[in-house]
């Protein structure tokens, strides 16, 4: 059952039709979660005992940083399936995830710098966490560059798939960078523990924001993939048929 569904999903035409139905619902969900998260984080959550108001930046910084790593894992899995099974859908997931992941990584870096200046006293330090996150941005940009430099999309997918897969080694490095080496960046938040390191009044808005970013990612990925599918399949009958139906 699952396999049959996945197999059908790997057809570009079927994916295009199936994903279209989800866009309005997911967009609505994203907007609701985003508005709730932003309002909660900026206006309802209390100030921090040490950082005061500046800590509010974590409500955008932490979800962006989580997404920057999550999107990479998705991209690496898609790259792996693209390399082994040569499925077109996974090739498209790789190229579109690279753009979205680069955006999340850049956001994590920029918001982190804006947090670092008032808290640490510096925008940037060559600390293990900051450096490995910057490398993540370059990995994403590498995949984007391969796709824009190589005309033939299948060749580009093979090369970028390899980069996506081997680059996944950077993900545990980012996560454990604050444990393995001493760094300026604080240790990872302890969310699943008997005494969480984030107070519930701050944890809930953070989780809402994380859910909002997750929903946003799915919406943006679907829209980007549909664009890419239309372009790649522009010479097929079903796309021509689609154009006739639209007009």
């Amino acid at each position, binding site marked *: 059952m699952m396999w049959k569904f996945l197999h059908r999903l790997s057809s570009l035409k079927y994916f295009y039709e199936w994903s279209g139905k989800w866009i309005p619902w997911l967009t609505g969900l994203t907007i609701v979660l985003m508005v709730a998260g932003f309002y909660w984080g900026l206006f309802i959550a209390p100030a921090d005992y040490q*950082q005061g108001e500046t800590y509010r930046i974590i409500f955008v910084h932490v979800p962006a940083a989580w997404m920057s790593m999550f999107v990479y894992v998705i991209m690496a899995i898609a790259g792996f399936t693209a390399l082994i099974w040569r499925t077109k859908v996974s090739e498209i997931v790789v190229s579109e995830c690279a753009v979205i992941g680069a955006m999340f990584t850049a956001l994590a870096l920029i918001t982190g710098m804006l947090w670092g200046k008032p808290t640490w006293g510096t925008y940037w330090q060559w600390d293990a966490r900051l450096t490995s996150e910057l490398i993540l941005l370059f990995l994403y940009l590498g995949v984007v560059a391969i796709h824009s430099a190589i005309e033939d999309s299948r060749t580009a997918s093979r090369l970028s798939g390899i980069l996506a897969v081997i680059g996944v080694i950077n993900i545990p490095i980012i996560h454990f960078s604050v444990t393995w080496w001493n760094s300026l960046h604080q240790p990872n938040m302890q969310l699943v523990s008997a005494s969480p390191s984030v107070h519930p009044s701050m944890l809930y808005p953070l989780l809402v924001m994380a859910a909002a970013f997750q929903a946003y990612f799915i919406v943006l990925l679907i829209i980007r993939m549909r664009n890419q599918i239309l372009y790649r399949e522009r010479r097929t009958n079903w796309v021509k048929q689609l154009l006739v139906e639209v007009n």
Partner: protein
Amino acid sequence: MRAKRKQRLIFVVVLLVGFSVAVALSLYAMRQNIMLFHTPSQVISGEVPENRLFRVGGIVVSGSVIKAEDGLTTEFGLTDLNHSITVRHTGLLPDLFREGQGIVAQGSLNEGGIFVAQEVLAKHDENYMPPEVAASLNKQGTFRPNQPQG
């Protein structure tokens, strides 16, 4: 087709494992350089670079902060809970600088064994809570801020 797929699978897995091993080995070899700062214990045992700037990190010893008469120079003890050193800094300190707070200072040792810092950065921990909660935890004595790092 099946055999070809298996071949590709082996190729990708070998590539990933080989690359991971290479990265792990180089990170291990470079571990001293990746460490952002040295600890006061390392400073005392002489495991720090001479004649060049380095960073030292630790916790500001409670009750050790002395403001000089010029109003700009601050001297304080820095500890990793095993050993402590004296740090002198002239200039502005970050907002989070306070006694019991983790900091990272960049500078070098002078002849007297005092660490002359050119830059002091405040380190933060992973605990986030409203002031009232911190206050009540303090009262109960269950609050343990700023565990030493490294």
